[in-house]
């Protein structure tokens, strides 16, 4: 797998790079600054040691044997060196010279090696010898009887910095190993952290290969990004499955609904064409074919309308319109013709304004009125009513047909649902489903008040905010 293809490798790679940079830089910084600090400590220590030793040197006329001090013959007396004089301490050496450069007291490892005797009265100076760097400090001593003495202090910088060098060596070995271990641990941990992501990928792959839309990502309960991704993924699949299921159901409903008219037409034509038939039989056959053809045509129209509304409600823009006029026009167009015994009443409140789609609302009303014709008593009444109420605008269509039993009242708005009593009626099975869909597009509620043998009243409530 290329690094570019695996988040895990990418994370490990970049964290390794960053770790190396961070560790390397901090190592260098520590190394550099501790060098500085050590050097400055060395210098202070050196000066301190020399200054302290200066106080240990005195001129004495005679030796006092009772004391443990050292006496060095000097001019007309002695140099009395106090026993507290430190020749060497913690790597700092001290040496006392006379004006000619003769070592009087103490130790000078540098002079032993190089024979350097020149003194500099300029504070700290450095000298190289035998691969070591020395820090030197020369102090001239002038007291009452002392004229030209030099006290020299020195310390090997190389030796005093030796622990730092070994720490550096150790770090150069240990740090890469630590970095390696950290990256390895990260690589293993990311595997655990990314496992849910892998699950998501597997699930998505399963879905892509087959059509297992019921597949979900299970077992991820974390609240982190991956948990959220899994949750979102599951939600998406939920929606997809639902809409796919709807689509599948619709296709199956549609083919099912088309099967019956198709089989009637096929049976009728096969029967009629089997042998010579009478003119009457031919006529009857054509009538059957025509009737079933019309039924299929209505079914196709309603199914297309329904699926269009179902899939893209936004293609029906809602504009302000006068609902009273629209209801009057539609109701008038569907009024019974001739001297029908049917009582057809239209009761409208004037100038009811709502935001809606003219075509859809007209269709909704047509469906409700034809429903009333289809199931109502042909000698009964149909009442169409539009009124403003506190809760909104109410449009209702009432018939005095056989009514709908309570347990079927919800179901009749489902597409292709047919009650036993309506099964033989020539509807497409989509009329009320379309009514419901159109009401939904308008944000309206639709329901039914019905009692068996007392008729039905379909009610659409358009909310007031329109």
């Amino acid at each position: 797998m290329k690094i570019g293809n695996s988040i895990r490798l990418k994370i490990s790679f970049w964290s390794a790079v960053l770790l190396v940079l961070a560790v390397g830089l901090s190592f260098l910084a520590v190394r550099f600054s501790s060098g500085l600090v050590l050097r400055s400590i060395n210098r202070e220590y050196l000066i301190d040691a020399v200054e302290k030793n200066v106080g240990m040197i005195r001129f004495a006329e005679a030796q006092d044997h009772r004391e443990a001090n050292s006496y060095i013959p000097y001019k007309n007396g002695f140099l009395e060196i106090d026993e507290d004089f430190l020749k060497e301490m913690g790597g700092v050496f001290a040496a006392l010279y006379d004006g000619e450069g003769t070592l009087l007291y103490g130790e000078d490892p540098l002079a032993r090696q190089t024979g350097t005797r020149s003194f500099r009265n300029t504070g700290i100076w450095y000298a190289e010898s035998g691969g070591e760097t020395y820090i030197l400090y020369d102090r001239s001593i002038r007291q009452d009887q002392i004229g030209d003495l030099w006290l020299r202090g020195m310390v090997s910088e190389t030796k005093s910095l030796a622990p730092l060098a070994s720490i550096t060596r150790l770090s150069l070995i240990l740090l890469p190993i630590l970095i390696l271990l950290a990256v390895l641990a990260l690589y293993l941990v990311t595997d655990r952290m990314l496992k849910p992501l892998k699950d998501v990928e597997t699930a998505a792959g399963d879905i892509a290969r087959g059509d297992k839309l019921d597949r979900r990502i299970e077992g991820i309960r974390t609240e982190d990004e991956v948990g959220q991704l899994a949750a979102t993924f599951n939600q998406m699949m939920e929606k997809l499955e639902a809409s796919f299921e709807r689509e599948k159901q619709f296709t199956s409903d549609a083919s099912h609904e088309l099967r019956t008219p198709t089989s009637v037409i096929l049976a009728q034509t096969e029967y009629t064409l089997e042998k010579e038939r009478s003119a009457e039989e031919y006529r009857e056959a054509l009538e059957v074919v025509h009737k079933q053809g019309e039924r299929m045509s209505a079914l196709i129209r309603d199914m297309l309308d329904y699926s269009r509304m179902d899939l893209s409600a936004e293609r029906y823009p809602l504009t302000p319109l006068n609902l009273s006029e629209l209801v009057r026009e539609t109701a008038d167009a569907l009024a019974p013709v001739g001297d029908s015994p049917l009582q057809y009443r239209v009761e409208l409140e004037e100038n009811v304004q709502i935001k809606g789609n003219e075509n859809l609302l007209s269709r909704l009303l047509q469906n409700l009125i034809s429903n009333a014709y289809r199931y109502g008593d042909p000698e009964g009444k149909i009442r169409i009513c539009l009124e403003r109420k506190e809760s909104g605008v109410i449009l209702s269509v009432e018939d005095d047909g056989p009514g709908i039993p309570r347990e079927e009242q919800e179901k009749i708005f489902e597409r292709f649902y047919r009650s036993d009593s309506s099964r033989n009626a020539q509807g497409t099975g989509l009329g009320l489903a379309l009514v419901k869909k159109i009401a939904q597009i308008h944000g309206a509620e639709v329901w039914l008040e019905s009692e068996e043998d007392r008729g039905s009243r379909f009610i659409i409530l358009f909310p007031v905010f329109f």
Partner: protein
Amino acid sequence: MRLLFAEDEEDLNRILTRRLIEEGYSVDACLNGQDAWDCLAGTDYDGVILDVMMPGIDGFSLLRKMRGKGIKTPVLFLTARDSVEDKVKGLDLGAADYLVKPFSLPELLARVRVLTRSKAGAASSILTAADLTMDTAAHRVSRAGKNVELSAKEYALLEYLLLHKNQVLSREQIEDHIWNYDYEGGTNVVDVYISYLRKKIDEGHAVRLIRTIRGAGYRLEDSL
């Protein structure tokens, strides 16, 4: 052969009933499940064709009721429900066959022949007794190699006799299976059609295949 046909689509019901009658079956046609159940309760059919979605009682429930009552008549479902689940359900409930709409008439008729044959225990569309042969698919009857022209009712009667050859069939049995509820003819209708059939089948042949069993009914002999 007497069939029960239940289908709530009126046009389809009418046209198929007509075609089945042309084929020589006697058919009781119902537009809903309740009527079909009433018919089943009173008659021993040779085959039942059921729609699944019908008002009253749906086809599946009807079949369940039939089997519950011990009615073993073979059932063919004729339905728009084409899902595998539905087919399996129908067949598991005890249907002999399952035909999805839309279908072709010849296929339906062939399946109905299988259906009615299966009840009588025949395994092919050719029925024989001695030198009498009936090809139920081609609708042809011959005796000793000579073609015999039969009317639809005569054909149905002969087919019934052939399916139950060597058995004594009472006049009531024959009437029940060949004539449907719509028939309100005289009681000697069986005797009349038996005599028609004898004229066409047995006349001019040395051996008479259709025998009258006194006090019991008729029997078709399988031996010369």
